[in-house]
């Protein structure tokens, strides 16, 4: 059998292996195994800007999310995005991990994640409908070089939800940044030095809408001319998880310390976002404002080529015209590396979809009858 035949056998085995759990789980409606659930997100955008970039209509991302229980305690999570590019559509596996839930306080998983060193990164993923604003903060935007948005490796996490502090944690070890430092090491660790992360946050029982937390991340990063740096990221967040008002604050410091002697470079980034869902008949409307800044030393060898300095003010209005769809109209005043300020208008329609009938797929009746 040639290499093509061997490949076909492997592929068939893998695909069959993936399908068997679904096909065998489907008829077992009275099982304690979590059912397969599919959610989708999409966004359509219109942009007018002073910046020297393309304007007009943009298809954003079409995002599919599947969670599939393979047994009562084992679940596969998968998020795939399709993004419109000038010459093609790019398909990307954003998240793919298999998790074993021992208990509330210990869940072990392996795969590709959104790095849990930023609140925003794990609260909204690629579901733009979930987030109040049209776009992510600059410090954690998709494709940023500033912080690793994705993480490939192993993770343990857990929560103690009924303790007074309502503590939760996550810790992981993985590949760290790829050669392109804006990407995760999907196909191995480029410098054979694993990255690590720790994340702790609290949701106190007595103040149920407050979440405060901190995270740390360490890796070894390499410049194009093979200079190695120890990278340490420390971040903090405080969030008020209501909409009247909604408040989110995040800060991150990214330190690059050369492996050989030399100066350490510290970059800082933060955002402060406030929104308020209007009461009564105005409840579909949520005005919001965000201040944000990214400050990177000009001589940081790892970041300097990417012109990451940024300062922005965002003001907008979110209109939830139906349960799972929203229109966002957003004005952005932004200053980039050149110290020149630009104005932009973003209009975005974003939505989530699952099954029709007023319930999410998670709520499919155990009888198999959809409401």
């Amino acid at each position, binding site marked *: 059998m040639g290499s093509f035949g061997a490949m076909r056998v492997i592929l068939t085995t893998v695909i069959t292996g993936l399908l068997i759990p679904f096909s065998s789980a489907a008829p077992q409606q*009275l099982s*304690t195994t*979590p*059912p397969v*659930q599919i*959610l989708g*997100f999409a966004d359509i955008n219109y942009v007018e800007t002073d910046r020297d970039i393309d304007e007009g209509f943009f298809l954003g991302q079409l995002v599919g*999310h599947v*969670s599939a*229980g393979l047994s*009562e*305690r084992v*679940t596969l*999570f998968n*998020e795939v995005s399709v993004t419109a590019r000038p010459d093609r559509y790019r398909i990307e596996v954003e*998240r793919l*991990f298999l*998790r074993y*839930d*021992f*208990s*509330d306080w210990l869940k072990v998983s392996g795969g590709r994640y959104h790095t849990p060193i930023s609140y925003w990164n*794990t*609260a909204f*993923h690629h*579901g733009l409908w*979930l987030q109040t604003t049209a776009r992510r903060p600059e410090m954690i935007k998709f494709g940023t070089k500033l912080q690793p948005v994705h993480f490939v490796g192993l993770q343990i996490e857990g*929560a103690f*939800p*009924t303790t007074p502090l309502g503590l939760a944690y996550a810790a992981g070890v993985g590949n760290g940044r790829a050669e392109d430092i804006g990407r995760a090491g999907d196909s191995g660790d480029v410098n054979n030095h694993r990255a690590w992360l720790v994340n702790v946050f609290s949701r106190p*029982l007595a103040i*149920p809408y407050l979440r405060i937390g901190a995270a740390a991340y360490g890796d070894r990063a390499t410049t194009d001319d093979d200079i190695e740096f120890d990278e340490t990221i420390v971040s903090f967040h405080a969030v008020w998880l209501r909409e009247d008002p909604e408040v989110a604050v995040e800060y991150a410091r990214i330190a690059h310390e050369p492996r050989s002697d030399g100066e350490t470079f510290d970059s800082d980034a933060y955002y402060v976002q406030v929104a308020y869902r209007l009461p009564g008949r105005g409840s579909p409307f949520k005005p919001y404002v965000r201040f944000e800044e990214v400050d990177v030393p000009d001589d940081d060898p790892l970041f300097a080529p990417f012109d990451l300095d940024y300062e922005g003010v965002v003001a907008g209005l979110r209109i939830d015209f139906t*349960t*799972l769809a929203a229109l966002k109209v957003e004005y952005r005043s932004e200053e980039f590396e050149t110290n020149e300020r630009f104005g932009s208008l973003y209009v975005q329609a974003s939505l*989530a979809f*699952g099954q029709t009938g*007023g*319930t*999410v*797929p*998670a*709520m*499919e*009746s*155990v*009888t198999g*009858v959809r*409401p």
Partner: protein
Amino acid sequence: MKSWRPRWPKRCMLLAVLSLAALLWTGSAFAQTSGAIAIVTHPDTRVDDVTFLELRKIFLGEQQFWSDRTRVILLVRAPVAYERDVVLNRIYQMREAQFRQYWVAKVFRAEVSSGPKIVYSTDMARQLLAALPGAVAFVAARDVSPEMKVLRINGKLPGDSDYPLQ
């Protein structure tokens, strides 16, 4: 000569029957829209008493395991049921749309493996409670049957004064 008999006794009887029917109908309608809600579990669940805050964490999908590490399986009545209105109002403190949005976000964030299972009647809840270890549901207190285990909330049972889901 044509005998004359007064018609009023017949009319009175008809009126009385209609009134009684109306009373019974309104009474049953009232029974559907009032009364305490009991939190019931699979009989083997090793929990007897929870605080109201713990109950919220369970129904919000934040506490996903019982103390014996059995997975919590939430059974939630379909929209329109009176019991659902009470639970959304008191436990979730959400409107219907917010409830739906909450679970879309929760599932998407991988914070839960699945959302609540929908049940369409008390009978269905009763059958599933018996069949699924770890299941927890809410039913009108008058519909509690012997095979259901009723949880105390803050030490109170349905009917006690200060029971939170009256």
